[in-house]
């Protein structure tokens, strides 16, 4: 694994660009880690330690070089009730369990399930995430002075206009520095990060969560850990795909799943909350020139260095500056193209996307939204394929026999159309059902074929099925009744 070639490719392809990008990401991680801690209702310390620990560990064990993982909004919104009702120690325990579940998922190759998550669901997920990040900023914007709004607007202006002057310095950092200086020397009356809770002043230390090791405790954290693990893996797999596309390189999704698990498992013991890959930060990383594990490692390490060394300064950062950065992340995460595409895409795709967004924003649970999106896509797909089904027929020269030609897909959704395609009341000696262009997919399809044949038989018409393809024939062989003795009695009983 640690061959020269992989060392070169995954770590040292372009050290200068990677280190610079890592520093840019670390600077952007600080406001996010603090912001997500506030969402989850814990001290900023918890999110900052988590971001350090996850980024540091995933640099070595992840499967997608150049992807940034840290404490995320997706996980933070899930744990709010857990922290509120049971306290922070339960959050650490849930994070450890989340890691274990993710490693198991990696061994079970659950990344294969991502094949069933359609593009519309992914777009919905990303948009919902952006909306969640934005909504989480609202408490900071309610019942405050006009000064707060002015600072947020000023911060956003600096973030988006400063790159026109120079792209050598991260503009979110410039915004934070300017607003902090303004608020300190201007004596502005706004909330600061220090007001939100304790900041770290030391390196994270190993700790065992102070929870009773009982079945009851497990019952409390298990549902949280399961959703955290699912949401974390979903976002990580999607982000990995985005980084794959941006850098035009491949990634090892299975290794990434296990890596996420290991990172979360360890983070729970360091007093951090669970996390996963971050779409916004990963885009920032690639945009800044980062593409290897080195940039992820630098991001994590430099983040810890910054908060330990610059802790007192970080406490002075006014919340409006943070809110401005988070709004930027939310805007950058949102897929604006999907809004334009709403009118041109097939209506089913738009419904799936919007349903995913609505359910996530409603439940604050990305997993439920994705599940609903996947089910909806499946239903729409079935209803589309069901239309790939035609029956034509022709009567023989003497008028005593009819040949039905069935073409297309016969499965649970199209079985009704199959049954009603035949005219059972026509007086005939013989019916030929030619299915050489049809495929029988499931036992509903076989059941329908049975029913049609027996209906004909009851009218005294002999039925012959021809042209079954191999797969369909095997299904008929195993599950059909019409070709076995006693069929009439059995079907009649239904």
């Amino acid at each position: 694994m640690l061959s020269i070639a992989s060392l070169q490719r995954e770590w040292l392809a372009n050290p200068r660009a990677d280190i610079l990008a890592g520093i840019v990401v670390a600077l952007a991680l600080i406001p996010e880690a603090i912001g997500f801690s506030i969402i989850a209702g814990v001290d900023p310390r918890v999110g900052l330690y988590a971001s350090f620990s996850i980024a540091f560990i995933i640099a070595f064990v992840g499967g997608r070089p150049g992807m940034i993982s840290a404490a995320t909004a997706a996980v933070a919104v899930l744990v709010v009730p857990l922290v509120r009702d049971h306290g922070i120690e339960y959050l650490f325990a849930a994070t450890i369990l989340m890691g274990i579940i993710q490693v198991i998922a990696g061994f079970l190759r659950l990344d294969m399930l991502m094949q069933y998550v359609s593009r519309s669901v992914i777009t919905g997920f990303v948009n919902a995430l952006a909306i969640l990040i934005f909504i989480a900023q609202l408490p900071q914007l309610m019942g405050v002075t006009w000064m707060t709004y002015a600072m947020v607007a000023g911060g956003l202006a600096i973030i988006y206009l400063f790159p026109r002057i120079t792209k050598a310095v991260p503009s979110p950092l410039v915004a934070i520095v300017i607003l902090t200086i303004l608020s300190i020397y201007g004596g502005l009356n706004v909330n600061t990060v220090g007001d939100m809770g304790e900041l770290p002043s030391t390196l994270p230390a190993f700790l065992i969560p102070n929870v009773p090791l009982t079945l009851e405790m497990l019952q409390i954290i298990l549902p949280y850990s399961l959703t955290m693990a699912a949401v974390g893996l979903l976002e990580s797999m999607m982000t990995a795909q985005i980084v794959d596309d941006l850098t035009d390189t491949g990634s090892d999704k299975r290794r990434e799943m296990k890596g996420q698990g290991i990172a979360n498992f360890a983070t729970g013991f360091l007093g951090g909350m669970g996390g996963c890959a971050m779409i916004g930060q990963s885009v920032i990383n690639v945009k800044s020139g980062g593409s290897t594990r080195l940039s992820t490692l630098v991001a994590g390490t430099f983040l810890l260095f910054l908060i330990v060394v610059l802790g007192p300064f970080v406490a002075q950062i006014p919340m409006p500056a943070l809110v401005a950065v988070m709004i930027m992340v939310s805007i950058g995460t949102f897929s604006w193209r999907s809004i334009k595409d709403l009118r041109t895409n097939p209506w089913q795709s738009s419904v799936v996307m919007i349903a995913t967004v609505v359910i996530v924003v409603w439940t604050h649970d990305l997993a439920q939204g994705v599940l609903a999106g996947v089910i909806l896509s499946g239903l729409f797909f079935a209803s589309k394929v069901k239309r790939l089904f035609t029956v034509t027929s022709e009567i023989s020269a003497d008028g005593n026999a009819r040949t039905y030609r069935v073409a297309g897909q016969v499965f649970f959704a199209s079985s009704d159309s199959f049954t009603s395609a035949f005219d059972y009341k026509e007086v005939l000696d013989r019916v030929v059902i030619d299915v050489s262009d049809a495929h029988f997919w499931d036992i509903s399809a076989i059941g329908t074929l049975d029913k049609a044949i027996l209906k004909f038989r009851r009218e005294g018409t002999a039925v012959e099925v021809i042209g079954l393809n191999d797969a369909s024939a095997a299904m008929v062989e195993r599950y059909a009744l019409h070709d076995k003795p006693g069929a009439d009695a059995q079907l009649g009983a239904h």
Partner: protein
Amino acid sequence: MTKILACIDASAYAASVCDLVAWAAKRLALPVELLHVVQRRDAVAQRHDLSGAIGLGAKSELLEELTRLEEADSRLQIERGRVLLATMADRLQADGALAITPLHRHGGIVETIIEREADARVVVIGKRGASHEFATDHIGSKIERVVRASAKPVLIAARASQAPQSVILAYDGSKPAHRALERAANSPLFAGLPIQVVTVGPDDNKHRALLNKARTALSASASVTLTILPGKPEDAIAELMAATPHALLVMGAYGHSPLRTLIVGSTTTTLIRTVHAPVLLVR
């Protein structure tokens, strides 16, 4: 089907790689696969944008920009590569190679070579690539990676190669050196060429025993000379090579781990660098 894998890029070494390949192809009676890899410049690192701000449509805009940058660069590289492959295929033909298959691939140079060498008898590559062309007395950054990763013997072309007329085998009794000895004894590449076996060190029983072992192995060869040279291997062999025109150096390569090489340096790397003649490395 076996073949000779010839790896060329836009450096001055392409011509001498072709001459050497033609020589080897005639001797081994094998077809040649002429490989050129289009290496895309990395647009991600080119942009120098550390602003860290992501705005409306950040993902799709970035993807489009990166694609645009890389597309233009790749097109140019492809055109150049086509001309290079055509020129060099003509040269090979003029040199008398039997069958030539040009192969144009995208990807990493080292990875592509390793991928294509599976059914190659020998891999031929220039001492330096286009990115290091004028750094005299350096070897290309990819040579060591290719040699270490490759399972095949690697023939390294110097700047000007004439058809080798004799073989010098550097032999120190190590495992790679022993494999080099076997190769020198059995390969049709060296049939009929005089072989000089060289070992470096004091003229004692140990070194004489080494040479005797080599002589036994080379019993079928036309003319074998045995030499013990005093001094350090890298200096002594380099001097001998300089004094012997039209010779080809055969040796075992990289007997030590990458870590050790990093600290104490590598005889192999030094020799490739200082010898201005073709070198066949056997691992």
